[in-house]
């Protein structure tokens, strides 16, 4: 099993799934938001707010599951600020999103002051009994914590929601043309508010996965740009849930691989290895973009103001 200079592929795949889960969760949420026609650049801020909210609750109650719950609530509450500003007060979405990121980074640092160096109760793996003992496959598929499965289930659920349900159709319609949706009597602002809060909750979960499972500790600015990668992934995935999964795992995979290569002492400059996940993700993004039809929601980023 030992190859690639001492890197075990099964372990590599299993750990890339863990590494990718935060951006997968955040990107899925942002995809739903953008499908509704809203561009929320505050993913990074919502992730880190989720990270600290989840961390504090998990430390204080000793329950990581409660931590995740409150991370989702924290992310959704922060996104609600964005929703009120952009949907009700018609502020500019780009500027508001950027402000949300800055606010989230500062606010989480404030909340987390007493928690630096504290150890959080972490999420255990689900015991799947004999399944986990299957060679290779068991290590890859059946040896994870619940949130990995939640994120995978979310991919399927969002895909099915957008494709098969009436609510999903209305959400896509609002993102495609808010004037038309309004003319047909759909509540554009309400749909967008709900989508924004769902996106906030997902970003919060992604952040908490970092602080409770991946690291698991609290450090200021620990999301380190994961929210921006999630934003880029949505575009790279052409607003399709399945491709978001592929993109997230690609980014996570390169991240894990380059870390392993660094540890294995590969004869490549460390700087090159460190930039490789970003470089490869951007390259793939450009390649896919050049193929034309992107399927961006037509009303993306435009404010809706019911004039009549």
């Amino acid at each position: 099993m030992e190859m690639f200079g001492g890197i075990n592929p099964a372990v590599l795949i299993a750990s890339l799934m863990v590494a990718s889960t935060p951006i997968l969760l955040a990107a899925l949420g942002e995809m739903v938001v953008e499908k509704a026609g809203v561009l929320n650049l505050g993913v990074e801020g919502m992730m880190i707010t989720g990270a600290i909210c989840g961390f504090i609750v998990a430390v204080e109650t000793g329950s990581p599951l409660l931590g995740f719950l409150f991370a989702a609530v924290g992310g959704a509450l922060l996104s609600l600020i964005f929703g009120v500003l952009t949907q009700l007060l018609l502020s500019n979405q780009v500027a508001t999103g950027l402000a949300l990121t800055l606010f989230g980074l500062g606010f989480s640092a404030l909340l987390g002051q007493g928690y630096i160096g504290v150890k959080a109760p972490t999420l255990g793996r689900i015991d799947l009994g004999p399944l986990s003992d299957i060679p290779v496959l068991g290590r890859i598929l059946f040896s994870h914590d619940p949130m990995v499965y939640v994120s995978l289930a979310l991919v399927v659920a969002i895909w099915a929601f957008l494709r098969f349900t009436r609510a999903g159709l209305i959400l896509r319609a609002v993102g495609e043309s808010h004037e038309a949706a309004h003319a047909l009597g759909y509540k554009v602002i309400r749909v967008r508010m709900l989508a924004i809060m769902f996106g906030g909750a997902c970003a919060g979960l992604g952040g908490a996965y970092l602080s409770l499972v991946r690291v698991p500790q609290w450090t200021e600015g620990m999301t380190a740009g994961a929210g921006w990668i999630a934003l880029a992934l949505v575009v790279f995935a052409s607003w399709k849930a399945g491709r978001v999964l592929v993109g997230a795992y690609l980014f996570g995979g390169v991240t894990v691989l380059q870390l392993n290569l660094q540890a294995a002492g590969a004869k490549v400059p460390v700087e090159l290895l460190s930039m490789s996940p970003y470089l490869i993700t951007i390259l793939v993004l450009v390649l896919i973009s050049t193929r034309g039809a992107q399927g961006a929601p037509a009303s993306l980023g435009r404010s809706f103001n019911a004039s009549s």
Partner: protein
Amino acid sequence: MTHLLSVEGLTKAYPGVVANDGVSFSIAPGEVHALLGENGAGKSTLVKMIYGLVKPDSGAMTLNGGAYAPAEPRAARAAGVAMVFQHFSLFDALSVAENIALGMENPPRPSDLSARIREVSHTYGLPLDPDRLVGELSAGERQRVEIIRCLLQDPKLLIMDEPTSVLTPQEVAILFETLRKLSAEGTAILYISHKLEEIRTLCDAATILRGGKVVATCIPRETTAREMAELMVGATLMTPKAAGAAPGEVLLSVEGLTLGAASMFGTRLQNVSLDLRAGEILGIGGVAGNGQDELLAALSGERRAPPGAVLFRGRPVGALGPTERRRLGICSAPEERLGHAAAPDMSLTENAVLTGTVRKRLAGRGFVDWTAARRFAEEVIAAFDVRTPGPANAARSLSGGNLQKFVIGREVLQAPDVLVVNQPTWGVDAAAAAAIRQALMDLAGKGAGVIVISQDLDELMEVADRFCALNGGRLSASRPTAGLTIEEIGLMLGGAHDMEVAHAEA
């Protein structure tokens, strides 16, 4: 005969303007009732109130003898009122079936819905494939989507807002067959239009609005189009007159131009050739989305073509950009007023500078000469009767007709040798449209060549000396407009392919 819907004293005021002032009228079952008026007369506010999109300030409506006050479109649809919108109600990236499902209260399951769409479209002679993306459909097909969406709900009252503005004559004929069939089945139709001849052939009664008030009612079959037009405008209309100059040398020619689509749902220009002579107006007809935007962009220089594909006085200009072409004397005015022809949030002076710099010398050594720019903007405002407090006002603050007069005037006053305009009078009221047409004809009378791209065939017949049709990115050979019949034009436009007339009963 009892009334299906009657409206009593509906009033709706917006800040600064009373959109509807005590409007009353009624419709009987099976009646086709026209609502006539200029832009801004209050037609759309009135139908929005009937459809539940806008709440009236005062007044009452009764439907089938009961009080009717829909709080939202859903309630209106439940009461049997359906509406076919002119704009803003289809989703390009969704399929036909999805679009229809969005307009229904309780849509059946997707497979049943597709079957019902096929069934209804067959009954009314409106063929439509439920699985196609709406963005790929022609304007006529898009309208069928809207109509079928309404018909699936068995409406008692069908509201149609300017339904024929984007259709070829043959498509209009088919639409009218469908509407007559519906009317015979007892569905009342409220028909909004400012195409008076259509109203005379189709409608049983007409209510005419001006300034938010009902100014007259008439029986369209017994009234002339001119009488109705004057009731709408409240003044006598003048018809544009050509100066009648003989065509001179060839100014602009396009030879075998092929150009890819500009956007995802755009059209590719294929082997387009044309000649434009001094002193003539060349009309290019066709339903929007058949390459009009691409053709304008290729002529104006927004999109570069192979140098030899566009010739100005025999000189290759295909590779030149808009500024170089303006310097030579080729000016243009695109279709979209806000955002393409004018920058919405910039003042009229600034907008005047944007295209007038070169020919009017509004800048020197990199600095803008604001005094000259303001003078030029004021000149346009005065010459074209643009109603605005002054050149410092933002383009966005002007009404569509006034801004269009400004945009056209800005180009005309630069004394171009060639002027290319796309939909010069789209969404413009009759008086402003007449002024714009007159200006184009005067320009040609002075020896310039003018290309008018328009969907409005009546307009082209009025102003153009020669006519050609743009269909699917291909341009037909030109024919003199004198003696051309509307049927011949329809055939040139590709007619109504894949359409069948509903039940040829007559």
